[in-house]
């Protein structure tokens, strides 16, 4: 079982690396969207600092949302999804491998580039640290919960907007606590509660989301 997990993870990573030109898209999108905000307002450091947590977090959310398609679309279209579902290994484990690959390719780069964006938005150093932690805890949840949505909509034509409609309400708690943690850290206040909440949500998502995704995939396949 662990072999199947690691091989699927490596396969997905390998597939993404061979499509190198697409790899940077979510990252570029993230930076681009965040950069739009200073252009849209008077970019005084105070104004930017005030909107920074929300702007960076929402942009991260949207970047992950836009990249969710890659999770199952290709497999669905070429028939590999059927083969995954016919594996003697539990589907949940295979789903987890794919979601991990997705996070490594989408969420992790966002975490790495976030300090740069913190700089763009005049965030103080303590807040940038917390930004990294909050994104580190939050982006895996975005991938995990997003997987549920994608598995329900992968067979729907032009299901991108439908996916957003379904998933964004579910992202709200992570957004609230993630953005707030950064906001509060910029004022020098403790963030332990917020980060613990994010950790708890991550634990919950890790245990339930792959199961829900597996059920959703079997529903999608049964047409």
């Amino acid at each position, binding site marked *: 079982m662990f072999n199947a997990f690691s091989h699927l993870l490596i396969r997905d990573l390998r597939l993404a690396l061979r499509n190198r030109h697409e790899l940077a898209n979510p990252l570029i999108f993230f930076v681009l969207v965040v950069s739009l905000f200073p252009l849209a307002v008077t970019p005084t450091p105070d104004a930017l600092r005030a909107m920074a947590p929300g702007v960076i977090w929402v942009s991260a959310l949207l970047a992950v949302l836009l990249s969710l398609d890659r999770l199952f679309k290709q497999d669905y279209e070429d028939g590999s999804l059927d083969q995954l579902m016919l594996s003697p290994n539990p589907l949940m484990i295979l789903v987890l491998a794919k979601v991990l690959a997705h996070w490594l390719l989408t969420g992790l780069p966002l975490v790495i580039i976030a300090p740069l964006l913190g700089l763009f938005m005049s965030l103080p150093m303590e807040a940038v640290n917390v930004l990294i932690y909050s994104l580190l805890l939050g982006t895996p949840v975005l991938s995990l919960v997003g997987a549920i949505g994608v598995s329900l*909509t992968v067979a*729907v034509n032009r299901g991108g907007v439908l996916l957003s409609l379904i998933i964004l309400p579910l992202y*709200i708690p992570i957004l*609230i606590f993630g953005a707030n943690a950064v906001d509060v850290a910029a004022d020098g206040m403790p963030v332990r509660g917020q980060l613990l909440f994010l950790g708890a949500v991550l634990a919950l998502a890790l245990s339930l989301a792959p199961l829900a995704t597996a059920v*959703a995939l079997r529903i999608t396949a049964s047409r």
Partner: protein
Amino acid sequence: MWNWIQRFSSPKYFYAMSAALIPWFAISALLIGVYGLYLGLFVAPTDYQQGESYRIIFVHVPAAWMSLFIYMVMAISAGIGLIWQIRLADMVAAASAPIGASFTFLALVTGMLWGKPMWGAYWVWDARLTSELILLFLYFGYMALQSAIEDQRSADKASGLLAIVGVVNIPIIHYSVEWWNTLHQGATVTKFDKPSMHIDMLIPLLLMAVAFKLFYAAVVLVRTRNEALYRDRNRRWVRELIERM
């Protein structure tokens, strides 16, 4: 036992049996609703803080309760349909969604109408209104997914799973929004958030809640009957029904 359940949950049987129930629910909803409104609008005492404008809570609060209640019913029915393959349960879930969304919308509108005299603005990001707004999105997501998938069975199962995922998320969302709200609003807690309400205000509130539930029962029966007719339109019992008319 299973055969008994199968028989009683067949759409054909449901269609025949539900016809008699609807008038009872509808009339009692009307009577209790009218009485409750009368008590609420005319008999309940004027509020010490808010004067007369608070009276909208007699519609707003029960509507908010219904929006959550119907979502639960929807999720449970969809779950039953998903796990035990009972088609009637899927029909009830699909029929309930627009009703629940309407109640959510009603709660939002009455909340906004209440907000104007109370806070001076039609929309403020308080905990309840924000939660209701998110709930409305959850309803829309359910209905959008239902209509996006052509195969009826898959559509029911997919949206059913979504409803269940939504139900798990509702406490999390509610708690998050509450918490977020306390950060930004401070202590503008209204008198009605606490259960210590004057009995003359509580009774009309509960009556309206009961009336709304009966109204929901009547409407969901009507809509489920429509769902049953539409989904089974190619089956013998529907064709016979049409021929008899």
